[in-house]
Every structure is written in C-alpha cells, then in structure tokens.
C-alpha cells in the first residue's frame, strides 16, 4: 500500500469531483423536467401521448447507460448531417453529450417514479379539491404535485445515488471527472488499488450526503 500516493492523489481527486457534482446536478435538473413531462404524458388518456411516453421510458430503461453515451457521443459524431447542423455546437462537447445522455436516462426512470407516485394519490384528495370548487389545474399544481413529490422521495433518492455512480461513465467520453482523473493518475503510477480506494471513498462520502439529505427531506415533509 502506497500511502503517500493516496495522500497526494486526494486533492487532485477532490478537485475532479467538482465535475462529477456538476454533471450530476445538471443531469438531475434536466432529468426532473423530462421525467415530470413524460409522467404527465404517461397518465394522459390520449393513446399517442401515452404510447410515446411508454416507448421513451422503455427504450432508455432497457438499454445500458454506457451504450446511450456512446451512441450520443461517437454515434452522432459520425453523421455528416448532424456535424453540419447547429446541433454540433452542443454535441461537439463531451461535457454536453454526457449531460444529454444522463438527463435522458434519469428522465426515463424519474418519469416512472413520478407516475407511480401520482397513481398512489387517493382519489379522495382530488375529489375534495373539486368539491371545494378548485380548478383542476390548481388541483394538479397544489395537491397532486406536492403529494407525488413526497411519495416519490425514497425512490428518487435511490435514483440520485444511482445517477451519481452513473456519472463515472463520463470518463469514457474523455471527461476528467472523478473516475477520469483516477484513471489518469493510474496511467502514470500503475497503482490502481490505492487510487481507486481514494476515489471510491469520495463517491461513498457523496452518497452519504445525498442519503442523509433525502432522509431529512422525508422527515420534513412527513404527514
């Protein structure tokens, strides 16, 4: 065990986790909107909307995240038409390719989490709202959404942790995130165990924070 290497690589890895956190928070931000959008579509009575949302979640939950990143990064880069379009401004950057892949992936899972949360809302709440003469729009924003968010917190917490670990795949498209920098240090020191132990501990610490944050929110919004 090379303790000195572990100590020396710690600040570099800590620095790299900033990118990991950025990737995670941006993907979760976009993913939440995507998830909400598709969850609502999924509950729609319109068969086209319904099937489209179902197909989306089926596709992104049914294929590995790594494959999705590779298709978006290396796949789209091969297509002349995309390279010549305005899309290339975004798709040229590995950073945005990773965020698009992560957001679409977590969006699919989030849509399922939110859908099941919406469906567990007791009809009585909505009926109570209606009987008070509240419009269905207000019922949706003021009753359904808050309850759904509370219901989905435990499952969504899991999804955040899975996504955090998923961001390590960003290193496969040249991003120097926590895993990317760990691999870089290994490429010059040839000591994978030491470096991965430090990197793993940082991931563990981040998971610890997320886990407790979710637990705090669960308690706060308990009813």
């Amino acid at each position: 065990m090379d303790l000195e290497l572990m100590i020396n690589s710690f600040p570099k890895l800590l620095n790299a986790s900033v990118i990991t956190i950025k990737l995670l928070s941006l993907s979760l931000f976009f993913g939440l909107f995507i998830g909400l959008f598709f969850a609502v579509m999924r509950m729609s009575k319109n068969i086209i909307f319904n099937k489209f949302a179902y197909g989306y979640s089926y596709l992104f939950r049914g294929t590995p995240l790594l494959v999705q990143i590779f298709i978006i990064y290396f796949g789209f880069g091969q297509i002349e038409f995309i390279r010549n379009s305005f899309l290339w401004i975004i798709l040229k950057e590995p950073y945005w390719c990773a965020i698009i892949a992560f957001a679409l992936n977590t969006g699919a899972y989030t849509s399922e989490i939110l859908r099941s949360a919406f469906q567990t809302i007791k009809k009585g709440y909505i009926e109570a709202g209606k009987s008070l003469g509240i419009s269905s729009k207000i019922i949706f924003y003021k009753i359904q959404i808050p309850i759904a968010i509370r219901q989905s917190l435990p499952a969504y917490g899991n999804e955040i942790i899975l996504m955090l670990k998923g961001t390590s795949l960003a290193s496969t498209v040249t991003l120097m995130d926590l895993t990317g920098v760990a691999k870089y240090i290994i490429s010059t020191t040839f000591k994978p165990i030491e470096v991965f132990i430090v990197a793993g501990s940082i991931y563990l610490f981040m998971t610890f924070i997320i886990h407790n944050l979710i637990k705090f929110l669960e308690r706060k919004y308990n009813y």
Partner: protein
Amino acid sequence: MNIFKKTIISVLASLFIMTNVYSDTIKIGTEGAYPPWNSKDASGKLIGFEVELAWTLCRYIGKQCEIVEQDWDGMIPALLMRKFDAIMAGMSITDERLKTINFSQGYADEVAQLAVMKGSDLEGMDTPSGINLSIGGGAVKKALKTIEGALAGKTVCVQTATIHQNFLDSGDVGSVNVRTYKTQDEVNLDLASGRCDVALAAAVAFTDYAEKSGKPVVLVGPTFSGGAFGNGVGVGIRKGGSGAIGERDAQLLKDFNMAINKARKNGDISRIATKWFGFDASM
C-alpha cells in the same frame, strides 16, 4: 459420502495439475486494438505483428504460450497482478515505465507523428522531417517551438497512458489542451468527426486508419523519437523479486532476450515487420 470425498479430491487434484501446467505456460498480454502492432480480425482472433512475433519467440524459448487480451490502460497493473507474464503490446521502453517494470531489448521501433484532417491549418508546418529528442540541439528546440505555436488553442487527442500522452504532458511543447481516450480507435473517430483538431500517435496507426476507413487523414510536422518517446518497443516483464517466482521472472527476461537475438539473426523480425507494417520496423 465416499463419492463426495472422491469428487472433492479429484477436483482438488485437477486444480493442482492445472496450476502446474499454467506455471509452465508463458502468458503474454496484448491489447488487440492497435493495428498493425496488434489487433483482431473479424472473427475476434488476435492478429498483428506482435501476435505473430510472440509465437515465433515462444518457439525459440521452447515453451507453451498463451496470448491474452488486456485493455491498454490496465496493461502494466495487470502484469504486476500476475494476470500474465509478459507484455507485447507496442509498448515503448521508457524511463518512466522502467521504474515499475523491466523490458527486454527492443524488437521494433516506430516513430510518432501528429495527424490532422485534410484542410487543417496545421498542414504544411515548417519543421524538419524528423526530430530526435534524445539528441536535442538548436534545430530540435526550434522545431518544438514551431509545434508549440501550432498546437496553441487546439484540442490534441491521444490514447491514455502512452508515450504520446507523456510527451504532451512533459511541457516540451508548452501547455497543451490534451484529451485522452481509452483506445486509438476512439482517437481516430474523434479526429475524423472534428472534435479533435489534431492527434498524436504512432505514424503507422494513422496511415493504417486512413487506408482502412478512406478518411482524409494527413500526417503533419516531424516524426518524433527519443526522449519521452522511449527507445523502441520491447517485451515488458515484471522485475524479478525474491523467491521462486522472482527467479522465474528473471529467467523469463533472459529467455526473451535470447529469443529476440535468435529471431533477429534469422531475419524473422524483419520478415514479420515488413509483412504487417509494409516496411522493416525491426530493430
């Protein structure tokens, strides 16, 4: 119960026999993704200069060999963890690697070169046709300055943990915006897509790609050798430690050096190199 015991004993015995056979076989690790040095054919079989050379060297050593595949970025760690006994993967002999592992004498040499897509403003860079960093001198310094100017603000792509990455990180051409990839294939893909402005690798890796893909990849600037680029490609072997295993590693180094000598004398290395590279890359 008796049958149970017998089964256990025979399983243990077979394990014992297997480990014995295993310790007599030389396991050679290669990447299988760096043509023409080593690659895979359509059926997934390992082919290339080093695969063919490995079988030849094993014949001279007179032992059974097995060639195993290993991702490039884990090559040296895998050797140290005894997943195999020797590396033949286009790995150049460098001072940095010599700190961790041993190398046999070099069996082939390659030059590195920058590559761009046709139409790049880096085409027609005014440098000598080749520079040797070990020799140095005014001409080399001037060429490095020219390259530093040309690379400024450009995204330069290399495969991770290579001599090419070491060179770009060394500061010889200033501070470069380097992007690292797991395989050379991925470097080639992003050079063609335009994400990389310029790439650095073995010149043959680019000519091989240009030939197979039909993409207009152009080599620019001087060919590089010496310094961070090492002193030829050799067989990587663990440093012999103490005990029987350490002795085995030390013996393996001797065996490979002997085999390379014989193969060189008999013209095997030249022949195989010419077959795969199109020119005699042997040394």
